[in-house]
């Protein structure tokens, strides 16, 4: 018995030592830069950056490394990022949207001014202007670097449309009419991922964008506009109207299910961006599906070629650790990113010629042409403008509006109350 105990105690001792000293042993001469990232593991960006990092590391004789710490699930990533920041442990490179949290980081002087950096190093004009503008705060400053470039559209099932005599809607009224016809024929008009909330929030932003560009949401988020204004109410009304054409139980439908419903022909339309080109390719080539962009209204201030364009979550640099070595790496990235990324059948935010040796699908080429032809304005998602408390309230309760469980005026009042408390009373 004593022997057993002795073994146990020594085992404990060993365990203690192993756990307490389990830190990293680093070669003092190698610089390691840490990137806390939220990109899909094995995705195009992840692979591209790893390739570039490897190449760069080799060129530096292995004396420079980058450590990717990937948390692909966005909410978990954000919780981790916020914990690290609160614990004064912000990594060298992070991913963030240009939202109010990022603004606070900027105010605290934690992020590197990307706009200045690109301008100083003569890279600013190499980017698509919209890709950069998407990363800007409302005051025009930019602290995050775009690594992707997407358009968002409404995909539709050609057979269901032709079966029910529906042509591609050009206006909101036509769109709603098409939905109504489909629903009456027993077809689910639109499948929506309600669980992630942002897809529903897009519908809220649409009328406002057509009526005022991004002016309304910018003013609303700063307390200079009210949700109870005509634009606000029109936007909420639209969600209520189109919400009845969403699939049943959309508030609890997840991304994969909503998309599969569409691909399986169980719904006629599905709103998603071109990052899903891989999933859409087959059916598109078979002529089963196609897409159209956000419809307009009679008195739109924004044109038909202006809709939601986004350049994804941005890459931001820790101002404290942004030294010469990291600068050098960033410049290297800017030189090589577009080539490698585009070869992977992706749309690069940096303007570049398509390599001749890669076979791009007709869908890719068509979308790329669309991108080159977008107007100056683009619909910026509301969650980058609103303060987080209001945004949470919007996202949670918009589901109820869409499902018909909440009255327009109640929702409007909630939002105005929240903005009052969180913005104007500060």
């Amino acid at each position, binding site marked *: *018995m*004593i022997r057993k*105990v002795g073994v*146990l105690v020594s*085992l*404990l001792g060993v*365990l203690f030592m*192993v*756990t*307490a*000293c*389990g*830190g*990293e042993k680093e070669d003092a001469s190698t610089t390691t830069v*840490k990137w806390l990232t939220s*990109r*899909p*593991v*094995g*995705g195009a960006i992840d692979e591209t950056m790893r390739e570039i990092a490897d190449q760069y590391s080799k060129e530096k004789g292995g004396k420079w490394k980058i*450590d*990717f*710490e*990937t*948390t*692909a*699930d*966005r909410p*978990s990533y954000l*919780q*981790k990022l*916020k*914990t*690290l920041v*609160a*614990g*004064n*442990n912000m990594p060298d490179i992070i991913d963030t949207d240009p939202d109010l949290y990022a603004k606070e980081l900027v105010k605290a002087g934690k992020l590197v001014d990307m706009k200045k950096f690109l301008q100083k190093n003569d890279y600013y004009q190499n980017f698509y202007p919209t890709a950069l503008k998407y990363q800007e705060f409302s005051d025009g400053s930019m602290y995050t670097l775009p690594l992707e470039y997407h358009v968002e559209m409404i995909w539709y099932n050609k057979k269901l449309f032709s079966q029910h005599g529906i042509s591609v809607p050009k206006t909101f009224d036509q769109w709603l009419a098409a939905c109504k016809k489909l629903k009456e024929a027993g077809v689910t008009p639109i499948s929506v*991922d309600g669980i*992630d909330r942002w897809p529903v929030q897009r519908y809220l932003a649409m009328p406002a964008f057509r009526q005022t560009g991004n002016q309304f949401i910018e003013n609303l988020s700063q307390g200079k506009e009210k949700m109870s204004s005509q634009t606000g109410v029109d936007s909420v009304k639209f969600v209520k109207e189109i919400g009845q054409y969403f699939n049943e139980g959309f508030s609890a439908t*997840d*991304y*994969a*299910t909503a*998309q*599969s*419903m569409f*691909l*399986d022909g*169980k719904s006629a339309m599905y709103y998603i*961006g071109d*990052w*899903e080109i891989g999933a859409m390719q087959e059916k598109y080539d078979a002529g089963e599906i196609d897409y159209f962009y956000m419809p307009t209204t009679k008195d739109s201030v924004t044109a038909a070629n202006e809709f939601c364009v986004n350049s*994804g979550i941005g890459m931001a640099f820790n101002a404290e650790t942004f030294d010469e070595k990291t600068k050098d790496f960033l410049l290297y990235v800017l030189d090589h990113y577009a080539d490698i990324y585009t070869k992977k059948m992706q749309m690069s935010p940096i303007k570049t010629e398509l390599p001749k040796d890669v076979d791009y699908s007709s869908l890719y080429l068509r979308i790329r042409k669309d991108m080159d032809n977008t107007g100056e304005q683009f619909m910026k998602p509301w969650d980058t403008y609103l303060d987080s408390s209001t945004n949470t309230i919007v996202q949670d309760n918009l589901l109820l509006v869409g499902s018909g469980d909440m009255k327009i005026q109640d929702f409007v009042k909630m939002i105005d109350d929240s903005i009052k408390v969180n913005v104007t009373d500060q």
Partner: protein
Amino acid sequence: MKEKAIKYLFILLLIVFLIIQIYPVIWLFIASLKDSVELSTTPFSLPKAVTFENYKNVLGDGVIGGYMWNSLKITMISLVLILVLSATIGFALSKFHYKHSKKIYSFFMFGIMVPVQITLIPLFIFYSKIGILNTSMAMVLPQVGFALPLSVMMFVNFYSFVPDELIEAGIVDGCSPYRVFLQIVAPLARNTMITIASMYSILIWNDFIFANTFISDSSAKTITMGLKDYVGAFGNVDWGATYAAISIAILPPILIYFSLNKWVTSGMTAGATKG
């Protein structure tokens, strides 16, 4: 006749419940053999075409083994600490004469009332200050700490059934309290230890929130963090791959639990006779 009918009713109930309990594991495994679109549109039917694509994806890059090893390390270390510490604390609080034992016991009880999510930032700041952030200790400390209240409660409960005479006899025989504990009391607590071990081995293995927050070294990622690797752009999740990964991930806990349980039957009858 009535007896037999009741007996059959019992057995029927037990079987129905059994099906309800193991259905998820079966569903999980079948789901991992389906392709993603089929999985989303017909989640409950048998696969039209069994595909091992998901498993190929998951096992292909070879990292899942590493993740499981990390999870295993943390679970084992935490378990040993939990058992040793709660057994000793329980012993101290129930068998020693000390004025404030009851208060200390209540002090421990506080711990089960804490919603763990709120402790993340304070713990993070604290661990950062005392410099254990990038070590496994940062993961083990909270797991052990949060497991202590309940484990201590279970041990105290068990010890209340250990007759004081047994201990007094040991003292009369000249044993120190340490020997009394190691040679007399602890061996009796085998059942309690197994119950705690089976409960917490699973809880710690399946923990995500502490792992996600405290592990910064990608080589130290645990399996629950690894499950999130199948999240795609803008939130699309590759469920097929995720289910395949989960099917692989729950194998060790199932094995541990089944093997621990072999001990329980023999321990059960032994524990019942307290002599």
